[in-house]
């Protein structure tokens, strides 16, 4: 039962951490934050990877894992890139202003 009890502790503490991390968010960042958090939720890549690794020569399982991995990575890579694109526009502004002065 050790993994299980540890896992529940991890779940509890992780949730508390999540609640604490986001306090006051300026409205400007709502969209990027949402898309960034969304990219992180693609962490199921790890589950998909584990599934493939443990699948042995079970073809349906390999296929499922691979498709699952594709979906998750689509979420992760797309999510982070899109967030970066949005945030780049904010930072561009501040750096340019410095150049003017």
């Amino acid at each position, binding site marked *: 039962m050790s993994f299980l009890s540890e896992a529940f502790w991890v779940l509890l503490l992780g949730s508390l951490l999540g609640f604490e991390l986001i306090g006051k968010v300026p409205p400007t960042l709502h969209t990027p934050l949402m898309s960034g958090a969304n990219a992180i939720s*693609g962490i199921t890549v790890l589950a*998909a990877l584990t599934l493939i690794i443990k699948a042995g020569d079970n073809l349906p399982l390999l296929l499922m894992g691979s498709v699952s991995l594709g979906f998750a990575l689509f979420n992760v*890579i797309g999510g982070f890139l899109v967030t970066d694109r949005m945030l780049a526009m904010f930072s561009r502004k501040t750096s340019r202003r410095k150049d003017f002065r």
Partner: protein
Amino acid sequence: MFSPEIIKYAIDLVAVLLLALGIKGLSKVRSAREANRLAALAMGLAILGVLFNASFQDGIALSALLWIISGTLVGGLLGIFVAHRVPMTAMPEVVALFNGCGGMSSLLVAIGVALFPVASTSEALNVSLVENISIVVSVFVGAITFSGSIVAMAKLQGWLSTPNWIQSKFRHVINLGLGVLALVAVFDISRGGLDGLWLLVVSSVLLGIGVTLSIGGADMPVVISLLNSYSGIAAAAAGFVVGSQLLIVAGAMVGAAGLILTQVMCKGMNRSLVSVLFGGAIGQDLGSSANQGAEYTNITSCSAEECALTLEAAERVVIVPGYGLAVAQAQHTLREVTRLLEVAGIVVDYAIHPVAGRMPGHMNVLLAEADVPYEQLKEMDVINPEFPATDVVLVLGANDVVNPQAKSDRSSPLYGMPVLDVKEAKTVFVIKRGMSAGYSGIKNDLFELANTSMVFGDAKKVLGDLLVELKELGVGRSV
């Protein structure tokens, strides 16, 4: 002692730390970009950690490696392609799409483990009850996230409208029925039945559709944020299924953070989560109520030329941008107009309603794309007291967020929603294509006020005309 086990734990710990720092940093403008990269780095580390651990334990079979590479290539390249191609206006849809795919991934993992119990990894997890529970949660939440997100995306894209039948109270019966069906399925699974698994998949997918379909487009951002939280929960459940603590902690963090973000958004729109989820679309319940389809009287309309003349004489101008501006792709033309005004010494600010655009913060992104300085974007609470001292307000493609009914008319469905007090300004120009209603379908009293003039036309075209007129007047000509 140096052992791969320790390295794996170290990698996991660092990854969790970086993820937490990433989420934290994303909520501040200065650190947001670095924070996003930090989170991406953490994700990469976590993936390496899994591969590293596996190759040390039993090694990774060549066939498995090939499947990993092919999945990575397809998903990764598609992700890169979509991320680079998507226009900023379509951001809400794309976030919904990504989110749905994350849910799908958790769903597939859970189905895989359920069908082929070999794949269940952690020895301690052979406690079948817990394994079943986590599979059920992962399937249920994953499926809802997937179908809900896809429906949300389709609605935002305009591929799907809210059908009338789903607006009736009957939808609660259907959704409740689907919920019961899911419970039956869970009962079957608990007795080791595989039919139950498929029943659960189908009923959860349908439930996701049923719940999301009835929610109005204006509330979609809240729904996406909530679904984002769900996908975190689905990931945490998948973590229980495959026995990964890193997954559990990351999933729980996203789930909790998403919940908080959802609440922040609800507050911005003055809607409670319950009314968003179960209340149906705003304005749609009214049906034949007198408010809807009401005729406008006393409309003053004017040309771009008159608008330019008034602007020339102004000292302080506030722009109220709405989604219509983004649809017309007029941000850049708007920026040229405001540049002229600024050169002429006129103070220009932008009033950003919390839900301007189609997602909170969406309008800020769109204006940033058009090079509008960040400092000129004023939040509603900051700009509202300044309207009485404003000479000209330009309302561009915004409607419900400037409707004075929300403050004055208790019977209005908008009543209580925070709005921008543009009517306090000396002159208001509303640039609009026609007299059609806004997203909520509610008549806007602002249009009938004496100090309001309508300038009819596509936002981009009107702004282009305005630019020409202002140049002819010599506004902003550097001497």
